[in-house]
């Protein structure tokens, strides 16, 4: 899942970015409103964590423009003001959630996860595909009741596929939503990680769950459906 963290106070922005990255998210950062809009236009972020008090362009204006551009991103407003007006203002402009500073990072993380679920219309924190269980709150995976140990990136990839169960996702989608390292999306990094993931969840003759659609991408689904 890809996040955009927009916060002008550098120490806070750094810690948020680090925290989200360590939680398995791909994170872009911006320190002012204009940069935030530029980032938001360039890539498709699942969740944008947006501070309201920003230089150049304030958070609410950024939000208004995002909504005018029909951005599908979920927006979580960070505000230091806790008056009802501020909250109502933000929500009416199309924010999906808000959090008043100071907050616990754990709470922010939980809300971001909830927003991701909402975006992919997954109500439960546990996604099941056949005998595969992806627990998005504990970031753990089981197949046939046996835990499977995945690396951060492998898990991020699997969670993205799981949120899009029964839908074909392109390599570019995966690239944009899962990875934030400097390599071009045309490289075969995605294929490499799909390979690693397959090895771990389709071990010992269990039925395949990750299927390749030539020229389209990948799909996570039970075979019978296809």
């Amino acid at each position, binding site marked *: 899942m890809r996040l955009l963290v927009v916060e002008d*106070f550098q120490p*806070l922005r750094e810690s948020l970015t680090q925290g989200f990255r360590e939680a398995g998210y791909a994170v872009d950062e911006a320190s002012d409103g204009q940069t935030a809009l530029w980032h938001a236009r360039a890539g498709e972020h699942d969740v944008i964590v947006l501070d309201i008090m920003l230089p150049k362009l304030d958070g609410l204006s950024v939000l208004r423009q995002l909504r005018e551009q029909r951005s599908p991103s979920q927006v979580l407003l960070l505000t230091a003001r806790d008056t009802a007006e501020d909250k109502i203002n933000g929500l009416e402009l199309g924010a999906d959630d808000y959090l008043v500073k100071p907050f616990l990072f754990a709470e922010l993380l939980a809300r971001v996860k909830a927003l991701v679920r909402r975006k992919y219309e997954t109500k439960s924190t546990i996604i099941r595909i056949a005998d595969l269980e992806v627990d998005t709150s504990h970031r753990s995976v089981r197949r046939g009741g046996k835990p499977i140990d995945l690396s951060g990136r492998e898990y991020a990839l699997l969670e993205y596929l799981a949120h899009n169960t029964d839908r074909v996702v392109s390599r570019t989608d995966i690239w944009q939503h899962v990875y934030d390292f400097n390599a071009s999306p045309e490289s075969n990094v995605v294929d490499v990680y799909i390979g690693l993931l397959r090895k771990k969840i389709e071990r010992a003759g269990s039925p395949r769950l990750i299927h390749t659609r030539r020229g389209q991408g990948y799909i996570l689904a039970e075979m019978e459906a296809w």
Partner: protein
Amino acid sequence: MIRSLRIRLLIHTSLAVAVILGLLCASLYFSMWKSTESDFNLALLAKARAVASTAEQHGQKIIFDYAPGQMPQFVTPDHPDYFQAWIEPDVVIRSPSLKQNDLPRPPEGTGTIYADLTLPDGRPGRAVSMSFVTTIELRAEGNTSETETEDARTIVLSVATGTIRLHRTLQDLGWLLIGLCSLAVVVSGIVLVVIVGRAVRPVERIARDIDQLRESDLSTRLRSNDVPLELQPVVEKLNGLLSRLESAFSREKAFTADVAHELRTPLTALLTTFEVVRSRPREEADYMSAIDKCRNVAQQMQAMVETLLMLARAEAGQLSLKLQSTDAADLLDDCWALFSPRAEARGLNVQWQAAGPIPIQTDPEKLRIILHNLFDNAVSYADEAGTLRISAKVIGNEFQAEVANTGSRVAAEQSSHLFQRFWRGDQARANVGIHCGLGLSLCERLTRLLKGKIEVQTAEQGWFTVRITLPAGRVEQPVVSAAEPHPHSLPV
């Protein structure tokens, strides 16, 4: 002291009405008493004259020639009138009603005299006495002649009548007037209660309105549309006071919100950093960098809190002025030392126009804080590789210091906001940290404390200048005289 305006008004006006009515009635009574008395006396005198006119002189003899039917009042046994006449020293005649009694004998030749007395039948009465000489003489032949005789005798006549009726009339009149007066006082009292009640009603309404004012809602104003003219200023003053209170309260509220806001962001940074660092085991270097980061944030918060405290103290008037001789050039150098590394790091070109010494009389600690803030702003907000111009001089008896920087994005029309707490030119946020918009308002407050002023100027090419002007104070000029060389002056 009666506190109620209504009762006080009532008592005072009622007293005034009662006194006026009382005086009116008294003077009315007095004048009516006068005229009734004089009418009574005139009537009594007329009776006396009528009796006197019947007197005739026959030689040495005086005869009162009247028929009893002509003057029945002197005959009747019921409440009669009386008369008696004397020719010294004998009694000439008594009215039939007198029988053998006497009226008190008046002195002779003193004109008309009225006197109150007790009548022979015991009633109170009044007598008029007069002396006269009869002009009618009856000659022996029986002819009447009007010629005066040489031996005309002076007759003293006294006529008395009862005064019960007079007294009763006057008494009735008195009671009537007292009754009317009291009635008038009571009626006017009732009318006054109504009038005063109506007059006081607006005051009571205002009092009710004031009573309904709540600290939580200062936006309400007292109605002034139907308030009497005399109370209009009161209502206006109160409304003015309310407006000032409201704006002061809302400023306080905004200020508290701003403080909370400005402290919340760094606080969140601290919490998040701690949480993220603790979430998993890390290398020692990671811990160290997190600690450094938190210390920086904490220092920024501390600086902000200090500034806020100073500002609060300045506004509460708790800062005292400690004037002393100071070398302003030295102070500038001293303050700048803290910022020159940052200016160098940002590649700023610094133009220094403050050659020392600049001796002034001021509070160096306050001036240091002002300069610190101005330098901090200038170094932070100047554009990359921009220019800073710092100058200080004494003109007349004023000390003037200017701190200017290029790269300002503050528009001229924003200048008025600069001294407001927490106001920030937009790009200020780019250099976040301690710049939370408090510096200039603190500078403004401190220059005012130093009895000086602070001004900002925005000019072309992004020049932004802050100028402070302070009284230079009475500075002892080194006196050098030929006779006595100044102890500090160096031999040339």
